């Protein structure tokens, strides 16, 4: 933040251009846009009554947890609940379903998409509510979730997600912070314009007809020469938007979910999301540019950010290693002469500025969980050391379909060479080169 301020100042007086400053400026501008939009966000208040089919694809889940998940759903009396057990037979789960009095189907074909197809074919409700098998509903989740469907133009609605007991570990706190920021900033902002780009899959409601119409594409459509069975929620959201419906966020419908507590699981999860999300961004970009400019902008920035940061870090490291010199921008400050005093001073000032700017930029999270501020350095480390490389890797590999990290019994990918898989490598290579060249 300090570097950003001083670079801006240099730009103002000397016209010196810094990619990092441009990037930070963009970050703040987007923040302002988001805040301006989300101030107009209101949850839907008037009740809506219609038939609902809750669909739960499941492979394997701890007994107690799954029973609890089902109980919480049946309590809210949806029209029907359909559990699709896919992969190997699981008699324990079958029994739990029997006891709870919900419909269950078993299919030997692994994969969530096939499970969804089966469930959609069987379901009869106007609204299909897709639920992850580890997601905990709260008291009024369903009733709140369907309220926006009063508006016939709305095709998909998502819930507010929280991490269960986030104080358990640093990783769960971090996951909770990310979810919270998403629920407090991007989702309500995008909901205002009716284009939430990705309705998170823990619990989403769609008009059933939309799913019926897109099922064929959902199961087969390729992009960049590959069919990628990840990011089902994002893909379904895309089809809903392309069918001309709005996708919105209902903040009053709350669900709890779990987060990885092991670093490796977190890496795998983030890698899966990074690939799927960036694959879908590339796929949707032409449509977004035509139909949903805000969305195009936010997702383009989403892809660009890791590249810009990498370029910036590279230039900082090269400046430090090659020139053994502190960046010249700090020369604008009246600093003491000897490095032993000036470097700590710059670090403290920079750290404090970063802290305060983050308390502002993520105020909607930290105002209610100020203790998380103590974990901020760790959050930053996770973002830089895990999220950043994972996102870059995810971009480069987004057109590879040989599964790494998806459900073990899931779609295993087609064998064979896919020439279009080089497209993300080319794009990424170009972005990386530009970013490093500008920054160096």
């Amino acid at each position, binding site marked *: 933040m300090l570097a950003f301020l001083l670079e801006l100042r240099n730009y103002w007086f000397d016209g010196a251009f810094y990619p990092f400053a441009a990037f930070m400026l963009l970050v703040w501008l987007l923040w302002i846009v988001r805040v301006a939009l989300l101030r107009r966000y209101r949850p839907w208040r008037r009740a809506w009554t219609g038939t609902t089919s809750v669909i739960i694809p499941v492979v394997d889940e701890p007994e107690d*947890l799954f029973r609890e998940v089902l109980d919480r759903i049946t309590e809210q009396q949806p029209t029907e609940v359909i559990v699709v057990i896919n992969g190997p037979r699981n008699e324990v789960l079958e029994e739990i379903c029997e006891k709870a009095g919900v419909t269950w189907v078993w299919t030997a074909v692994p994969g969530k998409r096939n499970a969804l197809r089966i469930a959609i074919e069987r379901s009869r409700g106007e609204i299909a509510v897709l639920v992850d098998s580890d997601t905990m509903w709260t*008291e009024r989740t369903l009733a709140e979730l369907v309220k926006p469907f009063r508006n016939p133009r709305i095709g998909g609605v998502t819930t507010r997600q929280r991490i*269960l007991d986030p104080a358990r570990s640093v990783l769960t706190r971090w996951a909770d912070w990310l979810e919270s920021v998403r629920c407090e900033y991007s989702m309500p902002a995008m909901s205002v314009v009716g284009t939430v780009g990705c309705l998170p899959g823990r619990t989403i409601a769609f008009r059933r007809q939309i799913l019926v119409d897109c099922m064929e594409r959902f199961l087969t459509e390729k992009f960049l020469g590959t069919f990628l069975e990840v990011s089902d929620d994002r893909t379904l959201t895309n089809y809903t938007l392309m069918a001309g419906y709005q996708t919105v966020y209902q903040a009053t419908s*709350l669900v*709890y979910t779990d987060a990885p507590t092991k670093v490796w699981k977190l890496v795998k999860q983030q890698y899966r999301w990074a690939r799927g999300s960036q694959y879908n961004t590339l796929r949707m970009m032409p449509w977004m540019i035509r139909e949903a400019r805000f969305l195009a902008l936010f997702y383009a920035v989403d892809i660009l950010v890791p590249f810009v940061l990498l370029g910036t870090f590279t230039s900082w490291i090269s400046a430090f290693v090659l020139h053994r010199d502190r960046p010249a921008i700090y*020369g604008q400050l009246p600093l003491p002469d000897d490095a032993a005093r000036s470097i700590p001073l710059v670090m403290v000032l920079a750290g404090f500025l970063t802290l*305060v700017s983050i*308390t502002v930029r993520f*105020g*909607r999270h930290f105002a209610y969980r100020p203790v998380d501020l103590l974990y901020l350095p760790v959050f930053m480390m996770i973002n830089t050391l895990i999220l950043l490389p994972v996102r870059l890797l995810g971009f480069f590999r987004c057109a590879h379909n040989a599964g790494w990290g998806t459900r073990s019994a899931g779609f295993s990918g087609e064998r064979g060479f896919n020439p279009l898989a080089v497209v993300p490598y080319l794009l990424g290579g170009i972005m990386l080169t530009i970013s490093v060249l500008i920054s160096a």
Partner: protein
Amino acid sequence: MRKAVHAGAAGAQAGRANRKPRLRIWMVVNTAMLSAVVFGVYHEAAIAQQAQSTASAQTGGLTKVDPKVARALATKTVPTKQQFVAATANYFGVMAADVPWNGTAVGKLAQAAGGVAPNMSETFTTWVQDFPAATVADSYAHDELPVITWEPWAQGGTTKAQAKQPAYALSQITGGRYDAYITRFAQAAAAQQWPVAIRFAHEMNGDWYPWCEKVNGNAPGSYVAAWKHVHDIFTRAGANNVIWIWAPNILRGAQSRLSLDELYPGDAYVDWIGLSAYDDHETTAMQLLGPTMAKIRAFTNKPLLLAETGSQSGAQKPGWTADLLDWVQQRTDVIGFVWSEYQVGRGGSTADWRFDADPATQTAFRDGIKKLSLVAVGQ
């Protein structure tokens, strides 16, 4: 787990009730804090900039002192002009590309001289340039006394055609045409406080500069008048830190119809005598300098600096170099020399004058320079 989830949900519901005020307070407080720090940073930077621009306005605007150099100098005590003028030891000066601005270039020269670092740097400034404060600062940063050759014209070079420039005739200077510029330059020299040697309008006994007498319409006596005029402006500006070097060319090559004593402004206006003296075929220092020294010592006893010297490539070069350094050591009225480290075609040079141009000369130079005791410029 069920309980926890319900508690969480209830908490979220209850939380929503007092959500707004808390968020509002949080945002107001933190935005205010952020604004205050941002303001503080910009304020401090503005003050630092102001200080720098004031300093650079005083020191001549165009030449900004690098903040790093300024900070390095701030730890040193500013010497007095008297310390340098009264010093009994010698000066080993150089005029070379990138000196004194580039520390690496300075270091290379010291290495070439067998580990003896120069304690004087000579540079050139024309009358379209402001006081070179950065050069002075860089010079002191490398523990060198700065000699500024200050040329009252707009361009460099030494062809006779260039000597004809009525705008820079001596009468124009005396007449006050450049007083505003001279005053600004003098004030800048005074403001930066560090002693600086100025070799103003050098080689006035030649015929290749517009300030030489008997060329460019310059009447007899006009050189002394111009010198005094400029010197007086410096005195009025309080520039007591300037060491004035009156610097003719040696007689060989100069106008024989000019006599040096008529060009001399007087001991009250001069601190050091400077000589431009390049060895061409002479084998000893006295051969090159004797005739000119004899004339000069007839009218002044001011200390003498070879303000430009060097030796033409040739069989005489190592011997002459050794002899010159001995001569400097022996003569109590000669305080040192400024060696031209230019090769042919560099810095307008027509010969390779360098002391490290060949191994024999370099050895002679290293042996000689070791015996000199040099003035400590950095203390």
